[in-house]
Each structure stands twice: as structure tokens, then as C-alpha cells.
């Protein structure tokens, strides 16, 4: 990998490019915040950042450190509370939702609750938080993950947040709102989507210097491949400049 940028910077740029202008995105702590801030400075000045504890439409000038901190409603349009935001999502106003987790399966289900048995946990993780709600009610979710066989696995230890659950029709059968679900998985190896018919994860494009075989090898389940696998452009000089000088001047995420 080129030393022009760090793995985190690559993830931030890829996630930023997924966001469209003039729509709403549910933002969590960490990389999604930087991606949304970068998108606002690049191609999506009218991206509406929504934070679960009440901030809507902030101008992300200073990097928030917590999903409820003052920066999540910096010069924002509305400061309300969690039920208002969650209900806004439940009635269909939030387009994108960003998610993360310790494990993901082929249907985009995520685990952020426990490694091992929930009744005898090997590692107790932070839990759902708003993750399950984002995965339930946003129109399209984007998971940001580090890509390896321990994280991309056949069977999760615990389904914290719904992806396509067990496959086609399963979300609707469970009672989740129709036409919702996982849209993209952005990783240090590439960008993945989901097959329309089987709802299984499919490799769409690879990152600079990565081959499709590398992605397959680092995935613990059978990965579908798009007919034509693209190559994601490396972070541009402009993206990196904005990221380093404006979005994250203290270098909190430059690792």
C-alpha cells in the first residue's frame, strides 16, 4: 500500500464518496464523522448529518468525540433528543446509516455485543447502542469494517444489528420496514455490496494494490464477485489535504 495515506484515511475517503449531497445520514462516532465532514467539504455541502442524541444538520467544523457532544449540533438546524431522532428514522426520513461491529456475515448482519456465548462471554463488547435501530430503520446502511477472516465470518456469535438476516424476504418477515437494509460494506480491501437475488455480500471494487483474490482469501464465507470488479481511486491530494488540515487537524485518526 502507498504511504501517501494511512489505512484509516483510505476508509474515510471511500466512505465519504458513498454519501450523496442533499440527503440525510445517521452518523456514529469515529470514521463516519470524519467521512461526513470530508463529504461536506468535497461533493456534498448539503449532507445533513443526524446524530442519535438529538443533533440534526450540524456544520462539522470540529471533530465530535462523542455522539452527544456539542460538536454534533455545531451551528445545526435542530437540537432535539433521542426519541425524536429515532422516530424520524422509523418514519423513513433517514437515508443512510453508518454501522460498525466486531463481526459481519454474508447477509450484512453485525455483532457488536459479545465474542463467545452471551451467557458466558469471552469478550463483552459495548452492545447495540443505536446500532440496531440504525440497521432496522434507515433506508440504506453502510458498514465500515477492517477486513479479515476473524471479522468476516459464516456465523456470528450474536446478531446485534439486522442486515438481511437469513436472506431474501427475511427482514420483511421479521417485521422490519420494507425496502430497507445493507447497501455497502467499506473495508481496507475494497467496497462490497449485496446481490439483489440472494442478498449475499458481493465484491464490487478493490482498493489500490488489492486483488479480488486477496479479498476472497480474507473473507470467512463464500463471497460473490461482481461481473466486473472496479478499482477504487486512491485518496486524491485534495481529499487528503482537507482531511488533514480541516477535518482532523489534530491527527486523531491518521493512524
Amino acid at each position, binding site marked *: 500500500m502507498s504511504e501517501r495515506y494511512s489505512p484509516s484515511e483510505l476508509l474515510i475517503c471511500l466512505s465519504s464518496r458513498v454519501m450523496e449531497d442533499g440527503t440525510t445520514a445517521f452518523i456514529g*462516532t*469515529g470514521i463516519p464523522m470524519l467521512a461526513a465532514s470530508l463529504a461536506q467539504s468535497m461533493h456534498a455541502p448539503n449532507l445533513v448529518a443526524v446524530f*442519535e*442524541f*438529538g*443533533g440534526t444538520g450540524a456544520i462539522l467544523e470540529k471533530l465530535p*468525540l*462523542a*455522539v*452527544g*457532544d*456539542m460538536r*454534533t*449540533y455545531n451551528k445545526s438546524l435542530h*437540537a*432535539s*433528543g*433521542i*426519541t425524536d431522532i*429515532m422516530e424520524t428514522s*422509523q418514519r423513513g426520513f433517514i437515508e443512510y446509516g453508518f454501522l460498525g461491529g466486531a463481526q459481519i456475515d454474508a447477509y450484512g*448482519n453485525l455483532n457488536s*455485543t459479545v465474542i463467545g456465548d*452471551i451467557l458466558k*462471554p*469471552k*469478550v*463483552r*463488547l*459495548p*452492545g*447495540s*447502542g*443505536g*446500532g*440496531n*435501530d440504525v440497521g*432496522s*430503520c434507515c433506508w440504506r446502511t453502510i458498514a465500515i469494517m477492517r477486513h479479515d477472516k476473524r471479522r468476516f465470518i459464516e456465523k456470528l456469535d*450474536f*446478531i*446485534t*444489528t*439486522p442486515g438481511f*438476516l437469513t436472506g431474501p424476504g*427475511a*427482514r420483511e*418477515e*421479521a*417485521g*422490519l*420496514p420494507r425496502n430497507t437494509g445493507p447497501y455497502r460494506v467499506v473495508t481496507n480491501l475494497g467496497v462490497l455490496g449485496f446481490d439483489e437475488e440472494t442478498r449475499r455480500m458481493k465484491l464490487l471494487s478493490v482498493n489500490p494494490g488489492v486483488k479480488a483474490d486477496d479479498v476472497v482469501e480474507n473473507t470467512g464465507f463464500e463471497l460473490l464477485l461482481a461481473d466486473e470488479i472496479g478499482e477504487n481511486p486512491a485518496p486524491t491530494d485534495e481529499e487528503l489535504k482537507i482531511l488533514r488540515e480541516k477535518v482532523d487537524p489534530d491527527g*486523531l485518526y491518521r493512524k
Partner: protein
Amino acid sequence: MAQKKKSVPIVYEGESPLIQPIDLDGFREWNRKKTKKLVDKRMTEDEAVDRFVNDGDYIGFELYGTVRCPLSLTRALVRSGKTNFRIAGQGVTELEMLLSMGRVKEIDFTYIGLEVYGVSSVVRRAVESGAVENVVEWSNAAITWRFKAAAMGIPFLPARSMLGTDTIRRSSAKVIECPFTGEKLALIPALVLDTGFIHVNRADKHGNCQIDGISGFAIEMSRACRNLIISAEEIIDTDEIRKSPDRTLIPYYLVDAVIHAPYASWPGEMASYYERDEKHYKMYVEQQKTPEGMAEYMKEWVLDLPDHQALIEKVGAERLKSLTMKGGFYYE
């Protein structure tokens, strides 16, 4: 109540029993007896903890992470020695303090983590060792809708979250087919706290409260408490409250105790007053990684201090001034 002939069939049930049973008529009767008089409710943290918290109570803290934290009350609660709490799992530092001291028996868990700083080592030790007897899973929306249901005085709210996952399997929610649409709905049970703790920007001596910035879940939770203890950065005159009653998010009749506690959210932030103390918080994050480190932290910053004033003096005016926001409230 007579058994109804027709009832909506339950199509799925979470496997965890309710940690706090639902008793809405009991809650109504409790609320009827609460004083509606404008009385002076100011007292110290210790007095409030002594009067309104018992061993084994179901308690909860608003807000979350390092934002608007009722930490002067939490420290007093830790020092009181009261224990065996059942807790609603929002409020991160507050829970870590109680968990590290072994005071928590059961948790309705949503998220306990350090956000950009990762997993909470305190939670890992407390849950992985089995020290917490019972952990029930919820999403953030679900736990706040539980408060909202209680605030509405009804036993549950239907929702389209948690469905189809292990989160609902390990919760106490139930799933029905909607009697109107036929679609599956999660029923989120009401949650009434024995005692709730909320930190606000301003309150009068009767407990009318103003909050700057996002309200988090203060509105819902304040209405879902039998006892509600408020700490406030500033105590203001009731005349000020009357000038802008639209700013009262928590009216006095919900409140049992009012504590004047400037910088109570430290090392967390307080909207329009002060920012998070990043240096101290990073130190806390490091110290909590080992049980010894966390014990030392608790001794130095909680157990060895008699009250909140002692903490303020220990942190020091210079440090607090450096965190105070321009145009905000200045430390004296």
C-alpha cells in the same frame, strides 16, 4: 382484571424476564401523592442519596458518555455504600464507577463503551467474571421508548426496531402481529425507575429545569421516575423560569431534590458552559484498563473526597477555567 376472551397472540418472546416489573396503577398512585406545592427542594448530594436511594433499587442516569453527566451525585452514591442496584444501561462513566465497586446486580444494557477510545475494560471485567448477575439487551431507541411508555402511563409501545435479531432474543420485548395491519411489531415494555439522576444547566429551588443543547432522553426519563434527583450548574430564581416557561423541560412536580453542583459533569462536558477535560478523560481511560488502576482512580477521585466541593478544589480553578467556554458560565 377479568380475563379478556380475545387477545392478540404473542408470536415471539424475548427470553429475559423484566428486571423491573410494570405497575402503572402503583405509579399513578405514587404520582398522586407527590407534592404539587412549590417547596424548596435544595439539599446536598449526600442528603438526596440518603433520602431517595435504597439498596436494590432500580436506578438510571441521563445523559450519555461524557455529556451532561450527573457525576457529583454518582460519586456521592458510590461513597454512600448503597448497593445491589438494578440499572438502565445508559450513562457510561456513572455505570463504570458503580460496576468497578461491585454495586450492580442487574443491567438493562444498551451501550457501555468509550466511543472513540473503544471498549470499556470495567464492563468487560464486571460482565465476563459474572459479577453482574443478569444482563438484558436493548437498543438505544428501545430503552428510551421504555421511558416514553412509562411517561405516557401505558404498559408498552410498539416499535419496528430490534426485530429478527439476538438483541430482541436477549431482551424482555415481545412480538405480536399488529391488529390493524397484520405486520409484526416489537412491544417495548414500560420502565419506571425507582430513582433517576439528571444533570441540567439551570433549575430553580423547586426543581423547574432548563437544559441547553440537545435534550438526550431527559424529557422521557424525568417522567418515568418515582424519585427524581436533579443537579444543576446554576440555581436561578423562579421569576427567571416564569419569564420563559417554554424553556422548562422538566417541571418541578416531577422533582424530589435539587442540588447546586457546578462542574458536576466534569470530566465530561456541559453544553454552553464547559468542554470535556480531554487530558483527565484520557488518564481515566488508561487507568481503567486494570482493576488496580481503576481502584486507584476511584480512591483518589471519589472515595477520598468528602464532597463535590472537595473535588472542585482538587481539580483546581485554573483547570476548570481553561475548560469553560467563552460566553458561558464562569467559574468563581
